[in-house]
């Protein structure tokens, strides 16, 4: 019933043009030439000219290739059999398991009606104080990790995935190094989490077009699990590769670029994916954690910039630590009021003091004499970095808060912190402060 076309009019980039009729927008086609066959998707209709984006790339496509339209849009199989499996960006098995073809669901479906969403209210505990105390992660949040090449962002992602209490983990890898893919698979397997995970992996060696499909496939599957009442955590790494794949296609299609070659709809494209994060009323939830590497460590680069406007905060991973400045969880206010009375105050005060510490560091670097206050800040800043910021620290929230009070009490007089008097009365560890002031004095004399 489906007609086959033999005449390819144009091949440019990964896009081919054929003359055909009765083709619908976004329909899939199979492009077969002597060098093999690939799926392709309609991305533009212009009279009887049909533009197709070839998933496996246009290399090896002959002008007399057979193009057969399939009458359907891109779909992916969905069943519990997906769990524990690894697939490519177009949904083919990457492990040695059988292909799954039952119960096909469309990808890139419509967005959730805002009236059916509920306010996120469950904190996801990670055991990382920089997240739990200062920027709590919330179920159904979408949050990127801004980082640069060389930082341990994949390790951080894996650690959060293993410690977070979720039912299903879906990993979407885009342009992943093969080593990194194996790292994820092994760490999930070693910790017994592979059986509740589904991996969609596009490695750097695979065709670019498949990279574009990864988030859609991963999120379509996540959505189905969530509708079954599961709490799903979706990990996407690295979204910058996804954006670059979009750029490549846009340029091939001769679209007018807006910013550094990226298409004008980059924001909408990214948003369509990130906005899949949701807490369904009466069903499960999707939490999205994504890695965005910043080319040249530049946060104003279009990819991190647009991402930042879409997501509900971001974590900056720099020098192996989550930076307190710039990192933000927009939803933390929804959960940190019900953890412990002092949570918000500790959070704000410690960061303000840490900011003052940074200023003092600058002053010291310029060779100025340190005042008594500066010295206090210096002790504080170092302890803060060592005892709370280091990624190796793995303690529950309550313990982290106590540790915060201890550090502040050891370094400052209560009124120097600007903490409301009521909380000081309740939480300030009194005796400890006295001991430590003595220590401080000896420190200072030693320094002199």
């Amino acid at each position, binding site marked *: 019933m489906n007609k086959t076309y033999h005449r390819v009019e144009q091949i440019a980039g990964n896009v081919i043009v054929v003359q055909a009729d009765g083709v619908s927008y976004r329909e899939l086609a199979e492009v077969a030439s002597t060098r093999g066959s690939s799926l392709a998707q309609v991305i533009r209709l212009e009279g009887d000219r049909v533009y197709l984006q070839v998933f496996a790339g246009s290399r090896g496509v002959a002008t007399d290739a057979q193009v057969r339209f399939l009458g359907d849009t891109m779909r992916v199989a969905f069943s519990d059999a997906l769990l524990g499996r690894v697939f490519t960006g177009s949904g083919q098995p990457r492990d040695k398991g059988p292909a799954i073809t039952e119960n096909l669901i469309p990808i890139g479906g419509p967005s959730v009606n805002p009236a059916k969403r509920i306010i996120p209210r469950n904190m996801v505990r990670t055991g990382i104080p920089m997240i739990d105390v200062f920027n709590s992660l919330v179920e159904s949040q979408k949050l990127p990790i801004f980082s640069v090449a060389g930082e341990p962002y994949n390790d951080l992602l894996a650690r959060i995935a293993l410690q977070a209490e979720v039912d299903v983990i879906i990993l979407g890898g885009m342009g992943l190094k093969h080593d990194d893919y194996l790292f994820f698979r092994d760490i999930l397997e070693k910790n017994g989490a592979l059986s509740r995970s589904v991996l969609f992996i596009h490695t750097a060696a695979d065709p670019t077009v498949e990279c574009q499909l990864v988030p859609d496939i991963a999120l379509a599957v996540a959505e189905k699990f969530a*509708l079954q009442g599961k709490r799903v955590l979706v990990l996407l790494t690295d979204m910058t590769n996804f954006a670059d794949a979009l750029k490549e296609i846009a340029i091939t299609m001769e679209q007018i670029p807006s910013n550094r070659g990226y298409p004008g709809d980059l924001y909408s494209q990214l948003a369509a994916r990130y906005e899949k994060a949701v807490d369904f009323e009466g069903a499960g939830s999707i939490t999205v954690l994504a890695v965005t590497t910043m080319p040249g460590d530049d946060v104003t680069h279009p990819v991190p910039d647009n991402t930042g406007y879409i997501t509900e905060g971001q974590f900056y991973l720099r020098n192996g630590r989550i930076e307190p400045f710039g990192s933000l969880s927009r939803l933390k206010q929804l959960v940190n009021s019900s953890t412990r009375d002092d949570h918000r105050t500790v959070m704000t005060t410690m960061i303000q003091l840490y900011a003052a510490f940074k200023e003092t560091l600058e002053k010291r670097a310029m060779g100025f004499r340190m005042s008594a206050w500066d010295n206090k800040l210096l002790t504080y800043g170092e302890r803060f970095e060592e005892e709370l910021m280091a990624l190796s620290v793995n303690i529950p929230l309550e313990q982290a808060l106590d540790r915060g009070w201890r550090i502040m009490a050891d370094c400052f007089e209560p009124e120097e912190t600007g903490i409301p008097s009521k909380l000081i009365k309740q939480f300030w560890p009194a005796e400890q402060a006295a001991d430590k002031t003595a220590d401080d004095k000896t420190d200072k004399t030693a320094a002199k």
Partner: protein
Amino acid sequence: MSTNLGRIAGVNGNLITVEFENPVIQNEVAYALVDDLRLKAEVIRVRGNKAELQVFEDTTDLKIGDQVEFTGELLAVELGPGLLAQVYDGLQNPLPALAEQSGFFLQRGKYLQPLSRDAEWEFTPKAKSGDKLFAGDTLGIVPEGMFEHHVMVPFRLRGELQVEEVVSAGKYKVDQRVAVLKDAGGRSHEVTMVQQWPVKIPINCYAERLRPTEPLTTKIRIIDTFYPVARGGTYCIPGPFGAGKTVLQQLTSRHADVDIVIVAACGERAGEVVETLREFPELTDPRTGRSLMERTMIICNTSSMPVAAREASVYTAVTVAEYYRQMGLNVLLLADSTSRWAQALREMSGRLEEIPGEEAFPAYLESVIAAFYERGGVVKLRDGRTGSVTIGGTVSPAGGNFEEPVTQGTLKVVGAFHGLSRARSDARRYPAIDPLESWSKYVGVVDAGDVAYAHRLLRQGNEVSQMMKVVGEEGTSLDDFLVYLKAEYLDAAYLQQDAYHEVEGATTADRQKHVFGIFVRILKAGMKFEDKDAARRFFSRLTQTTKDWNRAEMKSDEFKQLEERISQMLAEVTENE
């Protein structure tokens, strides 16, 4: 009338090219027919016998040759009682009703009537037969929540109209006839409670436009005292991501001293709309004691919803705002974010292959922005009452750099600028409005001379702080250091405000006047200290006491005690002089 049909000749994203035979109108609404769905679209360019249409939905499955039905009507909103407390998408589809019909997801091609046809409204006639009226004049009123909703002469009718009949008081549905009017040409028009108005045309059935002079209190100290907004004025909040634009908008929507708040969530996160959606019905409006939702309407076209509808959403919102202004009410329209709207324009412009302007935004961007903000304003109605539309738009500049086309185009046309800075938000100094860069042309709630003094002090404090970075604290004189400490104190205890504290979160105009008076006294006082450390210790104690004071209920004993303590502290350091 036979339907005007065309055929699809091209599909490129959400832009379709349609061949037509009968005349079409620029910006008219059309429907693309696919399977059994009707996808709403708008004509945005005509070339020869081909019209280009932006489709407000996902265009998947459209084929060459598919039919398109032109309606001959411009994109319009439905105006009538029942708009308040509603949640609409950019095309005025009621989202809760859609959710009831199609569940979790927004199915394309589903359009519902914005106003309920079953609800009955208690109509009281105000005009009588024989009256001579003009468009926008009141025919009768119905109660809508806490407001008197005016049923008006339809805005589209021109010239003087004679009332032939007005129905008697009683319960009516929105599409039942409530009056019959006769125009100068002798034709009669039947009037119901509901009317349509094209969104891109301003409603101007008022007598005259006035200058905005009255302050609009937001209960945010830095805004009301330093960079005030006027009723009927316009302001913008540009800022990098994470600087707190949306939180600021949410606080304003909660506390602003206006009758009606319209929130246009345009291309932003759905989660934020949900917060408003779920929390407002639970919150009470301190002015009226009723639910905040009763005075709120939400237009929400979040970032993952179709882009073309995003462009329409701000117009839908401002048209509704103008409609309520016409009833003599004060309306605040909060648009978050106008950059997303501008980006929607850019996406369409790109698909139309127009010659791009700066950063690929279309060349007409500035005039479109200006035309939008100009729809705000205070107006005097024909019966002497006044109404206002205040527009506050956030801007999300790429890279947080204000030198980009949307921010610059907006700054030219607004009356106040609340620039958010990354440095302040990183230091957790909220609200992160930059006190040195922002400005306002409106009159605030406290004495302008005092504000100028405080502002000068902030500037000097900043200069000293910059200087200290070079010459160090030891190279700074005690006097300069005091200026710096005073500026820091003003910043910490007045400009910064804990939005989540139940008392401090909303500071009334009266309280601001009172508190700011004391601040000015402290700032102007000559103080004497032994050394810088003593001065710093004093100010950290003073800051803490003042922060406690901010958190105390204004009528409470605690408030009075703390105020006294502050005066004492001040006296102690000024005595030595």
